[in-house]
């Protein structure tokens, strides 16, 4: 899926590059916070103001290595992990974006895998989309499902499963706006999403198994499972007593603060399911409104980019012929927009809460590490 040079035209590549650069800048800041968060329960935060480079670097090396681990499928074919969802769940979304981006950067510069001008496109689709979609979905599911290890594994399955086709959809969108050949978008979308749903199934299975394996051994290392830590129990005179709580492990989260978010996340998940799957399979011949919605949805996106880019761009957006597909496509685009907007809200909420918590000096890792 590494796009080479010349696949997407220059203005769109440049726009994607700007987006990728912005995402990396945000992630650099966020990763610092994530990796220092991890430091707190164990070794004490004193050491760790600058753990970002070694830890993120080693995680990037891990992703690079694990991409070479072949998972045999059948009859000589084999697949491998893409790692976006895995990174997001294991080390958090910011670090995940950063690590996958670094892997892509070095692949482009060293291995000529993916073009230099297409680097922005590749980072946007493979680093940004996969990690953000996977993490948003993962957090949502973990909140909704019962708090157990099994639900973390299940959530990572779903998150990885959706993240791969989502990145294919983003790639299709970029192709719709800046593709150098006018293949009908319907065909590109069908091919890309079809293939990537299959890839996503493999990715999901491997990601879930790997997350499960890490959780079984070092649950404290799984960023996405921070809230699940067991309370320390001491055996005093033959009976189990809760250990006196250290300030770090005090994790009461005010219920009032959580409830609106839970509602919001349930809504997100429902809309995802409705938009992505139901609209695709709803009916074989949907009414014209749905088709128009799809066409307009795509056209609006194209125009939105046209205002952002140079007039050089060749914006030919083909009509989507297959009505059912167009419904599904509109749904999937809706998912993309929803997830992006939703994540924005999510982070805004999170940041405010983090700030509040720090102010009220009960700065507990479980409370802040949403």
């Amino acid at each position: 899926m590494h796009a080479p040079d010349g696949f997407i035209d220059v203005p769109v590549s440049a726009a994607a590059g700007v987006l990728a650069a912005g995402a990396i800048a945000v992630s650099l800041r966020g990763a610092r916070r994530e990796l220092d968060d991890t430091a707190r329960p164990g070794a004490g935060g004193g050491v760790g103001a600058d753990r970002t480079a070694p830890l993120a670097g080693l995680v990037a090396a891990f992703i690079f290595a694990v991409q070479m681990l072949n998972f045999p499928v059948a009859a000589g074919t084999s697949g491998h992990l893409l790692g976006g969802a895995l990174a997001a769940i294991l080390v958090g979304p910011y670090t995940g974006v950063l690590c996958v981006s670094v892997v892509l950067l070095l692949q482009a510069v060293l291995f000529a895998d993916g073009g230099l001008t297409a680097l922005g496109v590749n980072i946007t689709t493979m680093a940004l989309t996969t990690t953000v979609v996977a993490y948003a979905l993962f957090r949502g599911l973990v909140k909704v499902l019962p708090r157990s290890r099994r639900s973390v594994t299940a959530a990572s399955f779903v998150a990885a499963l959706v993240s791969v086709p989502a990145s294919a959809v983003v790639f299709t969108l970029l192709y719709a706006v800046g593709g150098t050949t006018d293949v009908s978008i319907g065909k590109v979308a069908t091919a890309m999403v079809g293939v990537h749903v299959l890839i996503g199934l493999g990715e999901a299975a491997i990601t879930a198994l790997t997350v499960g394996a890490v959780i079984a051994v070092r649950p404290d290392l799984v960023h996405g499972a921070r809230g699940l830590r067991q309370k320390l129990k001491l055996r005093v005179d033959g009976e189990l007593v809760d250990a006196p709580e250290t300030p770090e492990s005090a994790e009461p989260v005010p219920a009032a603060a959580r409830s609106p978010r839970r509602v919001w996340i349930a809504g997100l998940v429902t809309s995802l399911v409705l938009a992505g799957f139901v609209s695709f399979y709803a009916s074989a011949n949907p009414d014209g409104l749905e088709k128009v919605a799809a066409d307009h949805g795509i056209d609006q996106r194209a125009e939105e980019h046209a205002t952002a880019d140079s007039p050089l761009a060749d914006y030919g957006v083909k009509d989507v012929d297959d009505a059912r597909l167009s419904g599904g496509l509109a749904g999937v685009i809706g998912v993309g927009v929803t997830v992006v907007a939703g994540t924005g809200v999510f982070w805004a909420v999170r940041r405010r809460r983090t700030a509040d918590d720090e102010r009220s000096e009960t700065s507990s890792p479980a409370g802040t590490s949403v």
Partner: protein
Amino acid sequence: MGAGHTHRLHRHGDSPVHALPPHTKLAAVLAFVIVVVSTPREAMWAFAAYAVLLGVVAYAARVPAGFLLKRLLIEVPFVAFAVLLPFVAEGERVDVLGLSLSVNGLWGAWNVLAKGTLGVAASVLLAATTELRELLHGLQRLRLPPLLVQIASFMVRYGDVITDEMRRMRIARESRGFEARGIRHWGVLAKSAGALFIRSYERGERVHLAMVSRGYTGVMPVIDEVTASRAQWSYALALPCAALVVCLLGWTL
């Protein structure tokens, strides 16, 4: 891509191309690729001219053609995609050998193939003539965020270590009679991946502590500051400038 692949990419040498400062080479390759991508696809001769330019660079760098061609194979998946394009694209169609092909699709396939191949060839030349460590220095000189460069350098430094760790785990699995044949064995492989993550992360923590104990404060000291003279810059930028001339000719002709 077993252990030591980083050494396979680089061809040691002391040609004039090897001697150029890394950031000039990076800038030159990036500019060259941008020029190539913005060339109109109808100007077929322009791409031939670009290929000749790259050939001259390869000759100057004493990179053998076989090495270059072998490394170009990384492009194969997209060649497959490009071959598909004439069959699925829209627009007027022509009959070639009894197959109905789209004219637009043929142009698109040519476009992707030509530009993609030139881009890959340029990157391969860059990697072949620049050492890894130098490349990272070059990225830093080109004002990439230092933290990002540090992460990349840690990845490069420990990439082989982690890959080796994975290889040792594979040997351990195989010496116990395990052979992954199908989906049923994914659980074992995933456990290895999980163990690999834990080992990598813990190694990261150890590396960080070791660095802190040696006075690391979050920035890496730059020991050998690479600078480029005006002559070196102009030497390196000769490639994209020549390409730019070709590109402008391609637009006007």
